[in-house]
Structures are given as structure tokens and as C-alpha cells.
């Protein structure tokens, strides 16, 4: 496909790899923030090609992975309510809650459906107005405009049976948290391009200056990632720290003002609990107070944990908990293969932690691309 295939050209990638190796005088530590970047780096073997000059640490940019357990449990409780249909992205279905996943709850009779996008959930609400349709809205700034647009559609059409369980997270605040963490060894960031398609670059300039850390905003194809790595290394070698746009075909300095206004019309910035990371100041969005009636948590109240979900008597009753170090993985403190459960109790078909589930989770990427265990230098 145009704008994908040409940015996977192996010959041009080889030239960039050579450029990067030549320019590097020591081994630098970079974090790719987004799980989509992680998968592309591993899938195309870039981490292995550059392992002598760059250590790539995998960041927390997997929205499914950081969605709080409490909200997953809440979605399951809603799904057991009569007349309620819970909709969400397919990635979300297998993420473990405190006792089970949405998929397992569906097997127990929960009314849960995967949709391609939030506007599909609005369509379901339109088609059956006697049914309460809840969209479980996970995702970064990239996704927030789509869920905001969906809610605007529902309001515009007078669909009183549509609501949102909001779990949107914002990526820059967690980068701030990592930059302030004294255990964090990251010397430069590869920031997520499609987040910046929405937000623009301004806040990243301030971040680079405040923390004296280079930032390269990159796309997700191999050439885009290599250009970003090169941009970081050039700065590190020269002692510079700026935010550079290595993805200008899709990222404008000011971002997308239409999308920003869409988000602002529906959401306000709020502190947010990130699974495995703890409370992140200004780390998420919540629905505006004036739109509370469309907030599923408000509409349905706090449902009791065991109201309708059977605890035992099912062939998919939960197993004894295995060790899960996903918090350390998400914060870049350990590699997935350093977790004692990795590829043993925790596998894609039986995930213990969320990063083994999602198509953007670092553990799933390590499992899928068979990354060998490697010594861990830091802590």
C-alpha cells in the first residue's frame, strides 16, 4: 500500500543502518514510547541490527495494557446488566480483569461485542433504542477524537441509550513521569507519531528542553523508525536536546486543530490511574461535567462486584495468580523476557498481564518475534 511499502524498502534501511552505526561513538539508550513502534522494531529486526550501538527500551504506550483493572471489572459488570450491550475494540476483550477478561465474561452470558470503531457502537444504539449501548473507550490521544465524534453523533441524534466508559490516556504526562524517575535510564525518546498527528509538537519542545532529553517523533514503518533513531543519536552525540519531527508527512507542528476541538468539546484532562504505572497526573481524559448523563459510570452507578457474575462453577474459573511484572515492563525497567512468567505461565493464549494480550504489548511482541533472553544491564 502506498505510504507503507516504500517506507519498508530494505536497501534504504541498510543505508540508514550504516549511517547510524557510523555516527555512534557509544551505546545509547532510547525508549520507543508506543507499542506500535515496539512491534515494528522487533518485527523488522531493527533492535537486533542496532544492538551494539543502541539499546531500545520499550515504553508504556499500549493503551490496552494500562487500562485500570477496575474499569475492566466495571465493563464486565455492565455487560451482565439486562438491556446493556458493552462494545469495545477487539484488543480489549482478552485483557485480564481482577477475576476474568471481557471475553470470559461473554462466555458466562455477558453482552459484549467487539467493534471496529466507536461510530459502529453508535450505529448499534441507533438500531435498537431499547438497548443501552456502552462504548468502553480506551486509547491514546490518537483515539480520543473518534470517541468524541461518536458521542457528538449520539447527542446530535438524540440517542439517549448511548454512553461511554472512558479510559482514555494521554502519553506526554507519562513521559514526564518517566523522565523524572531516577531509575529511568532513557537518554532519548522516540515519540508516537499518530499521537502527534492530533496533538502537534509544541508540548514536546517544552519536554525536551525541561528534561534535556532529545525527542524524535516517528512513524511506524522501518525507515521512519530508523530516521528517528538517527535523529536522536545525532543529538546525543552533539549534546543537544530538541524535539524533532521525523514524521512530517503525517505530523504538523500544530497538530490537527479540528481533532483537538472535537476532543475538547467532550473531554477534559484528568488525573488517571495507569495499570502497572500508578496515578499519572493529567494522564487521561474524562467526560465533561455537562455530559455526565453520557458517562456510563454515572448512568449505571457503581455496581456491586458479584451482582451477577458467577465466581465458581465454570470451566474458565481463574487460575492461581502467577507473577506478573508488567508494571516494570511498562516503565522500561525490565525487558519482558526477564519476567519469570514470560513464555511459561504467561503466553498469548493464557495471558497473565495485559502486555501479553494486546497487539501493541511489549510482552506479546517479544513472544511473537522470539526475542532471546538477554542480559539486563540496569535496574
Amino acid at each position, binding site marked *: *500500500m*502506498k*505510504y*507503507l511499502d*516504500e*517506507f519498508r524498502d530494505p*536497501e*534504504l534501511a*541498510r*543505508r*540508514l543502518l*550504516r*549511517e547510524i552505526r*557510523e*555516527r555512534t561513538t557509544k551505546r545509547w539508550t532510547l525508549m520507543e514510547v*508506543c507499542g*506500535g513502534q515496539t512491534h515494528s522494531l522487533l518485527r523488522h529486526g531493527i533492535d537486533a541490527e542496532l544492538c551494539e550501538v543502541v539499546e531500545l527500551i520499550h515504553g508504556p504506550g*499500549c*493503551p*490496552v495494557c494500562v487500562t485500570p483493572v477496575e474499569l475492566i471489572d466495571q465493563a464486565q459488570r455492565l455487560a451482565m446488566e439486562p438491556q446493556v450491550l458493552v462494545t469495545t475494540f477487539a*484488543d480489549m476483550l482478552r485483557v485480564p480483569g481482577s477475576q476474568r477478561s471481557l471475553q470470559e465474561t461473554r462466555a458466562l452470558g455477558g453482552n459484549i461485542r467487539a467493534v*471496529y*470503531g466507536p461510530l*459502529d457502537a453508535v450505529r448499534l444504539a441507533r438500531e435498537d433504542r431499547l438497548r443501552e449501548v456502552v462504548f468502553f473507550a*480506551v*486509547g*491514546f490521544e*490518537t*483515539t480520543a*477524537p*473518534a470517541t468524541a*465524534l461518536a458521542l457528538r*453523533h449520539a447527542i446530535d441524534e438524540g440517542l439517549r441509550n448511548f454512553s461511554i466508559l472512558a479510559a482514555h490516556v494521554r502519553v506526554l504526562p507519562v513521559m514526564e513521569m518517566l523522565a523524572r524517575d531516577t531509575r529511568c535510564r532513557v537518554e532519548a525518546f522516540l515519540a*508516537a507519531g499518530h499521537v502527534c*498527528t*492530533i496533538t502537534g509538537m509544541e508540548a514536546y519542545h517544552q519536554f525536551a528542553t525541561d528534561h534535556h532529553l532529545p525527542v524524535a517523533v516517528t512513524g*511506524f514503518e522501518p*525507515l521512519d523508525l530508523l*530516521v528517528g533513531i*538517527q*535523529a536522536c543519536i*545525532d543529538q546525543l552525540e*552533539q549534546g*543537544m536536546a530538541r524535539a*524533532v*519531527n*521525523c*514524521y*512530517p*508527512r*503525517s*505530523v*504538523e*507542528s500544530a497538530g*490537527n486543530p*479540528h*481533532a483537538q476541538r*472535537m476532543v475538547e468539546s467532550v473531554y477534559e484532562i484528568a488525573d488517571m490511574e495507569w495499570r502497572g504505572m500508578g496515578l499519572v497526573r493529567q494522564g487521561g481524559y474524562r467526560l465533561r461535567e455537562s455530559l455526565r448523563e453520557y458517562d456510563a459510570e454515572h448512568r449505571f452507578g457503581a455496581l456491586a462486584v458479584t451482582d451477577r457474575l458467577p465466581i465458581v462453577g465454570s470451566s474458565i474459573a481463574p487460575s492461581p495468580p502467577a507473577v506478573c511484572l508488567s508494571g516494570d515492563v511498562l516503565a522500561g525497567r525490565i525487558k519482558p523476557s526477564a519476567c519469570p512468567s514470560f513464555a511459561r505461565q504467561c503466553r498469548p493464549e493464557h495471558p497473565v498481564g495485559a502486555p501479553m494480550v494486546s*497487539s*501493541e504489548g511489549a510482552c506479546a511482541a517479544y513472544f511473537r518475534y522470539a526475542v532471546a533472553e538477554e542480559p539486563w544491564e540496569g535496574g
Partner: protein
Amino acid sequence: MCLAIPGQLLHWTETGALRARGMVQFGGIARECFMACVPEAEPGDYLLVHAGVAIGRIDAAHAALLLAELAALPAEDSFAGDSGKDSGEDNGDDSGDDSGSGAAAGGER
């Protein structure tokens, strides 16, 4: 979940601030997408589509520029010794814009 797919706008199917939609071609598949966030898009433009919603337009000139810059890097075969280190980059140029570390960094938009 942050992945967005490039596709070409074939034609608008509905206009209006909220309801705007357009038919977008992704490889061999055409699908109607919501266009409220890219009201300035024109048929023929390439868009980034995420979860059924177009979130941005792809700048063809920037894409071509990057590929041209990478193509200008010395090829593997022509590379001899350390000559590649002087391959025309000016890494010290700090023009103050968003772009510019090395061969391929893009540009201000």
C-alpha cells in the same frame, strides 16, 4: 491501537461538520470513513484513518522528500571505508525548527 492506515479519498459521500463522510480506498478495499477531522481534504488526497475516522492528511511532498534524501545516501556497494561520513549531511545546523537531525529528518509543517 495508535496505528492509523493510509488510504486515498475517492469522493465525499456526505458533507456537514459532524456527519461528513467519504469513501476511502485502502489497497483493494474501499470503506466509508468519518471525515469531521479533515474537512479540507479533497478527492485524491491520502488520509490517515484510525478506528474508522480520518485523523489527518498525508503530505505527499514530505513523503517524497524523505525518500529522495534516503536514496541519496551512498549505496552499500558504493561505500568504501569511511567516506560515507562526509555524505553531505550538515548535522550541526540548528535552524530552530522541528526538523533536521541528519539525512532523513523531515521538516517543519
